[in-house]
């Protein structure tokens, strides 16, 4: 008899705990970030369905990316707990884990501090933006600010853009500018850029699945931003009122069908090097056709394992005059104490200026 009552008591406690947990989840589901995620998921599912046919006709992701995309299928049904720690799940894209940045890792932390100091010495425009603590942001705590390898990378890119006399134009813009990032990953650079240059419309082209990270993150970081996904309005109207929109998410398979009136800066970081020559050519040509004046690239000439690409700078050079900007003697992936890259091995900051050829004669 006593056994029965004990079991009942245990089951009742379990039920209560489960109810409490459900209640907690229900509250968390109402959080802004999760609501944003739900909107993103709806759009992503739609975009994936739309893109399926096009992928069958030759727009399929490479083998590498097919494998990568399969890894985070679970993000299509993420709980509020995952969204609250969204940055911890971006390791699927970056390989960076929060536990690589424990405060106890003194030696590593010191190296980050040194590299940050070296970058700050190069920064004469004050473009430093630390990692946000939003959605589980992580990094070494250096003077009260979070710093991880991505933060340093983005900082380096911003310095390069400033040194290339591009960033100033975007920061001081009185007229709205449009920036197009090809392959934005989890949206970290978009966050930094938009923070520094609020008067820009930021267009991201990527695999729709990746919008689960980037769009959710950016919508949570900029709650008042106006966000548009491809397909929310008829395709030809995607950019009709682009000056009013803060972020536009354009899937890779549809980047040809929606044409903005102007593009002021095209950005690519670390993904041209993974593409085939023809894919890179396609993106560079499109930027040229958009009359985009600057194209920025942070890539190696060719990823070591990629045998389907000739040379990123050469391809950029077909439509843009490439100008290399040298900052630190080591690539962004390395700390200062590590060996510098060989002449051809490292990541290069390249600012391309649009060539005249093919442009219409001046009035």
């Amino acid at each position: 008899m006593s056994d029965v009552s004990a079991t009942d008591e245990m089951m009742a406690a379990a039920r209560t705990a489960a109810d409490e947990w459900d209640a907690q989840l229900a509250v968390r589901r109402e959080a802004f970030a999760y609501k944003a995620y739900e909107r993103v998921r709806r759009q992503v599912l739609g975009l994936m369905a739309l893109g399926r046919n096009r992928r069958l006709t030759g727009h399929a992701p490479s083998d590498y990316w097919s494998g990568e995309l399969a890894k985070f299928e679970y993000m299509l049904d993420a709980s509020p707990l995952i969204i609250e720690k969204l940055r911890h799940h971006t390791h699927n894209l970056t390989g960076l884990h929060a536990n690589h940045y424990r405060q106890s890792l003194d030696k590593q932390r010191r190296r980050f501090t040194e590299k940050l100091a070296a970058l700050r010495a190069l920064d004469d425009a004050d473009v430093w933006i630390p990692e946000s603590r939003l959605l589980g942001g992580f990094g070494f705590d250096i003077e009260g600010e979070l710093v991880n390898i991505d933060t340093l990378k983005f900082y380096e890119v911003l310095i390069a853009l400033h040194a290339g006399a591009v960033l100033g134009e975007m920061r001081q813009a009185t007229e709205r500018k449009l920036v197009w990032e090809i392959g934005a990953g989890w949206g970290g650079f978009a966050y930094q850029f938009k923070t520094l240059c609020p008067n820009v419309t930021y267009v991201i082209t990527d695999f729709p699945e990746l919008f689960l990270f980037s769009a959710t993150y950016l919508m949570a970081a900029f709650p008042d931003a106006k966000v548009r996904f491809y397909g929310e309005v008829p395709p030809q109207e995607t950019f009709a009122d682009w000056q009013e929109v803060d972020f536009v998410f354009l899937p890779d398979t549809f980047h040809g069908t929606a044409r903005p009136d102007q593009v002021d800066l095209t950005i690519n970081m670390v993904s041209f090097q993974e593409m085939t020559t023809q894919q890179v050519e396609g993106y560079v040509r499109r930027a040229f056709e958009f009359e985009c004046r600057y194209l920025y690239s942070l890539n190696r000439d060719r990823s070591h394992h990629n045998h389907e690409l000739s040379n990123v700078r050469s391809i950029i050079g077909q439509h843009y005059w490439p100008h290399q900007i040298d900052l630190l003697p080591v690539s962004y992936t390395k700390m200062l104490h590590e060996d510098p890259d060989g002449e051809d091995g490292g990541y290069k900051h390249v600012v391309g200026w649009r060539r005249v050829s093919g442009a219409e004669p001046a009035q």
Partner: protein
Amino acid sequence: MSAPRVVIGAPLYNHADDLPETLESLLSQSYRDFRLLCVDDQSTDATADVVQRYASQDARIVYSRNPRRLGMIDNWRRAFELALEDTPDAEYFAWASDHDIWHPRWLATLVAELDAHPDAVLAYPRNRRIGPDGVINDKRPWEFTTAGIDDVSTRFKQTMRRMSAGNMIYGLGRAAAIRRAGVFRHVLVPDRLLLMELALEGQFRQVPDVLWFRRWYGPIFSLQRQRRAFFPNGRPFYAFVPWWISHACALTWTLTVRGERLPRLGRWTGLRLGGRYLRLAGLLHFRQELKQLRLDLFERATFLKPLYLRVRGYYRGFTRRSRLDQVGAHWRKSFGDAERRRRLVQRSIRKTRKAVSEGIAPPGRSLLRAIRALPLMKSRIIPWLVRQEIDEVPSGREVGLMRAELRRVAKSRTPIIVGPWLSEVGFEVLYWIPFLTWAVKEFDLSPDRLFVVSRGGAGLWYRDLADHYVDVFDLMSVKQFQRRNEARWQDGGNQKQMAVSDFDDQIVELVKEHHGLRDVVLLHPSVMYRLLRYYWAEKAAISLLQKHAVYRRMPAIDAASMLKTLPHEYVAVRFYFRPSFPDTRENRALVTRFIRALAATTPVVLLNPGLSMDDHEDFDPGTGMGVHKIDHLMTPTQNLEVQSAVIANARAFIGTYGGLAYLGPFYGVPSIGLFSNAEELVLTHLDVSRRLSRQLGVPLVTLDVQEVEMVETLFDTLTRETPAAASRPDAAVPTSSRL
């Protein structure tokens, strides 16, 4: 439409190679309201064509050609005068060179700077120095400004001490102030004098962005050079007066005697400034003379330079270490040192390796080389020996022997080993494969019996001839092959396979072993070599080749996977040096120009394998604008396969005559082969290549580099003679025309 506020004068002289990038960077300015006046001082290269090409696309360009060569000073003056004649209301003026690059925001930023600061007469950005290849090669941009300095005397002194005339002269200035400052006076180093006089007019403002990239061709400054460039029609006496004296005299004359700045600047002040200039510029001059002395010394005694650099490095390292305080600077500098150390170690290793390899080279090779290098050996004795041998054996007999050999091969029921082919690509493509094609047909050799043996992935050339292909590199390492093949050359005297060598036997044994073949019969390249040598030595007619070779297109190559690596449309290029196209400065310059011009319009894919597989030395023009390297795709075992696939899908092939140049027509790809030393050519090969082109219906142009200029002239003439050009109203005014 209102007149532009800005006019740019570009004095041009013989920089056609860099001019497209220069013009494009100016035409891409975000500030579009300007006129660009290009004044060509009788360039002898393609400068006029380049400017006219852009002028036809952009109405802002005005082109003018001086009726006679004026020299640099007068050309700069003329650029200014014509620009202001063309656009008299222009507020701002800038000189542009014919080889530098401007950031798209350069003009907008400088205009905004001058608009915002009425006290300023000249605005210029920070700039970086780039090499001929466009890569930045200085350490940091220089900085100088007189912003906020109202006192004329202080501005004058600051400018005198710290200006960088060569950089600042390309800034944007107020046209009226430049005119008042005398534009370019007829003195040496006229830019310094102009800037000094401009400093009297107002402030200089430097914007903090790097917006101009100055191309630097090395330490070319010298007063002698200036005298030549400034006064091409004879040096006046004052060209030999030290520049600081002539500047001081000019200043004193202008300010004191003529009183050009009165009443703002009194005559007494003018005299004082002239005196100060004499003193300060004199000191500067001596510093420059010392620098020049050093440069001259190193030019004559190059061995001193490394020593000097080392001492200077120690000195700088010493002084640097003593003032390292900033963390960032510390890291940059210390890593710079580490990088230098690394390079030093690598250089030492390279030198040691080279010394060792040269030291242990077989003495026989040197001996043979020495014998061949004897006077008359190459030009007379060897050809005579070859002729003697050929004269003794009539080709008719050789034909009989060849046919008997092929009959023997055909009759046997065993597998046939075809090859191994161990010599040049050119002979393989042009003779061996057509000969085999003929033999297979003539003697009905079944493809399943044929085991073709070659190297480097040449198998796809034989696909419609033989069912089996064996690559030598599957049987042995590349190093083993190179070593043995070199020994074969030594034994045979050259790389032609006139007889079956020990190395051939060894390869045949390996093929048998790898493929489990017991009895085989050999169809060796010597059969073809011994037959066709009569034709090559002009002891037999072309009919000998025609009767024993079949020329047809090679099977298409499915290179879908590789094409992803290549641009959508491209021209394949491979230049290497050989006796008929030797490694000379002229040939290097021509090839570089060729590739750059080509890449400006069509992507170029370089076929350089990055491997040393034969006696040819590849020319590497570097990866630049629109030039794609694919050496990462090539390994010794398949470089020919990759090169063939790339050529087969190219719009055209251009390269050194011989080898791969023959391959294009076999894949229906038009080809151009260049040579420069016709004496080293075997004319019969040239004849065959032309017949091949006609037979396959694909152009194969063989061109002596001396003919290139003639062809260019011809095409220029044709272009100019087009009805559209002839009917233009300005076509009859060649010296100064707006396009």
